[in-house]
Structures are given as structure tokens and as C-alpha cells.
């Protein structure tokens, strides 16, 4: 009986997933009855609130991927570098100090990062002469990348710590340097965990809302130039959700269609990441 009550608690999480799927699918199905799916997925003009309305989602996808690219440009090398440092180079006392310090980066609310990107980083980039606009993908991407450094660092470091000491000892005993042992013994041994951290970071970047909403703008442009303003899937959903869109209208349903597109991206990435993490955990436990 107690077990039943507790199982009901557990049921909430199941219902959440069901709810998400239904909430996304139902309006999307209605949406795609009105709007041709091929036009949606290949169209290069996104203007759902204009006359005549256009529903090509590519600008949103490209916008998302553009920002994600710059985020990865920052978080992958620096995250991995931090992980290698913490795992192979740092003394225990230093490690005990630095690890939580990096975690603080992960704990800062995203709206704060958005503020920072818009009011400090963009002007900085402008002063340096890169020619970025007030809203641009570069600023949002780089700041998001810094926010994601702890994600890459902590999972990669976990994976590297799980590599048995014997492997390292074998490398050192052969006369290899710390650089060689780290990069040729430890990293390859921990590779599935490290890749999992990259995949997770990408997934988080794709799903991030506030930084891009504030710093990248809400102008859907199909461009790879990071100095331009772009609109990501998440920014569009947020901006439309804030506004007054009549329930049941096509414009209202775009929230869900884009949401579904977003969800598919992140779902695939998350499943890959989880499978990779399980693989590296199994290898050593």
C-alpha cells in the first residue's frame, strides 16, 4: 500500500514525458495538416506573423546551429583542456579549489549570461573592430560556450578519473611524458565519456533560450555570418509565447511545431550521450 503511494510519485515523471509528447505532437499534427512539411523543413523564409505568412524553418535551425557552433568552439577545447588539467596535472589541493570554482560557472542563471553578452561582450567585440551588430550570434555563442565549459569539463574529468591508474603507470614506465600519457593513454581510454560530454554540451547549447533571446536577437536570417542577428528555435518559441497569439491559430501552433523540431534534435543527442556514458561506466565498474 505504501509501495503504491510511492509508485504514484514515480508515475508523475512518466506523466511528464507523456504530457510533453502529447503537448508537442497534437498541435504539430494539426499544423502540418495546414502547412506542407517539406516546405517547412526546407523553406528558407521564416515569417509566420507576416502577410503573406512564410513557414520555412531553416533560418531558425541554421541560427541555432550557428550559435551552437561558436559555443562548441569555446567549450570543447577549453572544457577538455580544463578536464585534462584537473585530472592529470593539478595537485589535489588545487583540484579541490578549482573544481567547485568551475561549477559556479554552471550555476549562474542564463539570464545573467544574456545580460553580460549584450551589455559587455558585444560592445567589447565592437570595440575590437569585428563589426558585429547589437544582436549577433558570435557574442551569444561565445558566452554560451563559457557557460558550458563546466559541462564538458566535469563529465570528461569523471571519465578520465575512471581510467585505472595502472594504465597511466604503464605509460610512464615506458618513459612517456605527462603530455604523451594524457593525450595518448588517458584521453583515448576515456573517449566515450569525453565524447558524451561534447554531445551533452551540444544538446544544452541547442536547448538554451535566454542567452540567445537577449543577445542574438529575434530576427530570423538565414546566414552563417556570426556578426549578424539570428533567431534560434528557442528564441522564437519564447518570443512568440510572450506575445499575444490567439489560441488555435496557425501562429500559435508554430510554437509547438518548432518545439517539436527542437525536441527531436535534443532527444537524439541526449540518447546518444546517455548511451556513451553508460558504456564508459560499464567499462570500468
Amino acid at each position, binding site marked *: 500500500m505504501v*509501495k503504491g*503511494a*510511492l*509508485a504514484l*510519485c*514515480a508515475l*508523475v*515523471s*512518466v506523466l*511528464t*514525458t507523456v*504530457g*510533453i509528447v*502529447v*503537448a508537442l505532437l497534437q498541435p504539430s499534427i494539426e499544423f502540418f495538416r495546414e502547412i506542407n512539411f517539406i516546405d517547412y523543413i526546407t523553406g528558407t523564409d521564416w515569417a509566420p506573423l507576416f502577410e503573406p505568412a512564410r513557414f520555412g524553418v531553416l533560418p531558425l535551425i541554421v541560427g541555432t546551429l550557428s550559435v551552437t557552433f561558436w559555443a562548441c568552439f569555446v567549450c570543447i577545447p*577549453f*572544457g577538455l*583542456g*580544463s578536464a585534462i*588539467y*584537473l585530472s592529470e596535472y593539478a595537485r589535489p589541493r588545487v583540484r579541490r579549489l578549482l573544481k567547485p*570554482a*568551475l561549477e559556479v560557472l554552471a*550555476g*549562474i*542563471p*542564463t*539570464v*545573467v549570461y544574456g*545580460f*553580460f553578452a549584450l*551589455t559587455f561582450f558585444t560592445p567589447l567585440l565592437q570595440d575590437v573592430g569585428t563589426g558585429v551588430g547589437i544582436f549577433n550570434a558570435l557574442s551569444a555563442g561565445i558566452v554560451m560556450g*563559457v557557460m558550458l*565549459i563546466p559541462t564538458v569539463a566535469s563529465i570528461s574529468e569523471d571519465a578520465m578519473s575512471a581510467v585505472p591508474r595502472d594504465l597511466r603507470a604503464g605509460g610512464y614506465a615506458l618513459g612517456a*611524458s605527462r*603530455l604523451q600519457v594524457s593525450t595518448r593513454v588517458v584521453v583515448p581510454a576515456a573517449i566515450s565519456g569525453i565524447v558524451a560530454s561534447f554531445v*551533452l554540451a551540444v*544538446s*544544452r547549447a541547442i*536547448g*538554451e*533560450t*535566454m542567452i540567445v*533571446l*537577449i543577445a542574438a536577437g529575434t530576427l530570423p536570417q538565414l546566414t552563417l555570418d556570426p556578426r549578424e542577428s539570428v533567431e534560434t528555435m*528557442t528564441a522564437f518559441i*519564447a518570443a512568440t*509565447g510572450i506575445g499575444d497569439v490567439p*489560441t488555435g491559430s496557425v501562429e500559435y501552433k508554430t*510554437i*509547438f511545431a518548432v*518545439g517539436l523540431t*527542437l*525536441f527531436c534534435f*535534443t*532527444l537524439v543527442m*541526449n*540518447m546518444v*550521450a*546517455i548511451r556513451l556514458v553508460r558504456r564508459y561506466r560499464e567499462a570500468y565498474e
Partner: protein
Amino acid sequence: MSARVRGGLFHAALLVSVAIGLVLLATLLVDVLRKGLPFVDGVLLTSPPSSDPDRAGARPAILGTIELMALLLVMAVPLGVGTAIYLEEYADRERWYNRLLEVNIQNLAAVPSIVYGILGLAFLVRGLGLGRVLLAGAMILTLLVLPILIVASREAIRAVPDSIRQGAYALGATQWQVVSRQVLPAAIPGIATGSILALSRAIGETAPLLLVGALTYVSVNPTLFGDFTALPIQIFQWIGRPQENFHSLAAAGIIVLLGLLLTMNAFAIWLRNRYEKNW
């Protein structure tokens, strides 16, 4: 390039990696403090927002955030702890539905926060007809933090040594007696710490609240079934204003928000250190 030089450069590059994040963090904090500190005053904390930056405050937003936290405490913690107890003490791991449950929770932890907002929009605001009210916001945040809470609670429960359970069973206690009188009390410090950390994540969330209707201009104090706003939303609204002073106000709001977060996390760490059990 000799091996030593290469090794040295590599080491330096690694240090730069670590430094970049920390330097940026420091820059961010300094920048926010510089812009916002002059504006952190009684006006900020006690006045409603206004179109005049000199008279604008964040009172409804601060109250909204506090009320959201209180609701989360009441809703999310029992659900999360209950699920954790079920998974750790009662569920048969071999069963497919229990394994599915675990996978499900793992997936939910990685869903973008805005999708929770969409969930709330579809079911609570429009579906159930709750409207854009505080309760809807609290419910959605509950679902958002549930996976984190479950994981933290499970770890706290798992940390209780099995010898305690065996001793209690051997005395003739039923399973629920063992769980409620031995396991849970011993796990409470860990659960409390985890709950506070989960809550601190929740109060920084903006995106789901945007969709569930934290309106960006609310001048009345939030009530359960009325219009509401929260601190991150208020900050966001101020950022959106073109005037320079509103940016400073936003920075001031950020200082309050970060202060709140710092306090919560410090409390969690203190709790953990004070009640850390050495088995």
C-alpha cells in the same frame, strides 16, 4: 621543438583553459557589480516596477520568486523523495517498467527548459484553463527540477549503509518501518542539501516562466491565482528597455538574484558539512 618545450606549452595551454572560464566569471561579476551596485537600495527592494527608472523596484518580482520557492518546496520535494524511495527501496530492478522509469528520469533531466514551458502552456494555461498564474508557474518548475531532486535523494538514500537496514529488519520491523524510521532520517541531510541545490537552479529559470505567463509588467504583489512575475523575468524585462538606467537596474536585480543564490548554496554547503555522517 624539444619535448620539454612542447610539454611546457601544453601545460600552459591547459592552464589557459581553466583560466578562461574563471577570468570570464570574474569579469562578469565585476561588471555586474559595477553597473548595478549603486542601484541596490530600498527602492529596488520595496517598490513596484515603473516606467521611470528612478522609481522602479522589483518588489513583486522578489515576492514572486520567494513564493515560487515556497511552492516548490511543498510540491517538488515530497514527489521527488517519494519517487527516490520507491526506486531505491521498493522497486524490483529486474522489472522492465522500473528500468523504463529510470531511463525516463534520465531523459527528462536533459530536456530543454523551454519545452517544459511549452508543456505548461498547452496543459495548464490553456488546457486546464488555469491561466497565466503563479500556481501554473510553480507546477511547471516542479516538473523541471524533479529529475534533479530524484537523483540527489537517491544518492542520499543509497549512502545509508545496508547494515542499518539489516539490523532493523532483524528486530522484526516491517519494510515501511525500516524506511521511515531508519533510512529516511539518516538520509535527510543529503536530501535537504540536494533539495536546496535543486531549488537554486529553479529560481534562475526564466524560459519556462515566460511561456507560462510571468508577465513582464506586473505591479501588484503576486497571489496564487493571479498575475505573477519573478526576479529573472523582471531582469529580462529591464534588459529589454533601451534606456541605460534600466540596464543598471537589471544589473541591480542580478545582484539580488545572485545574492539569493549565494545564500542558498552556502546554506546547503553548511548543512552538508554540519550533518555529514561518518559511518
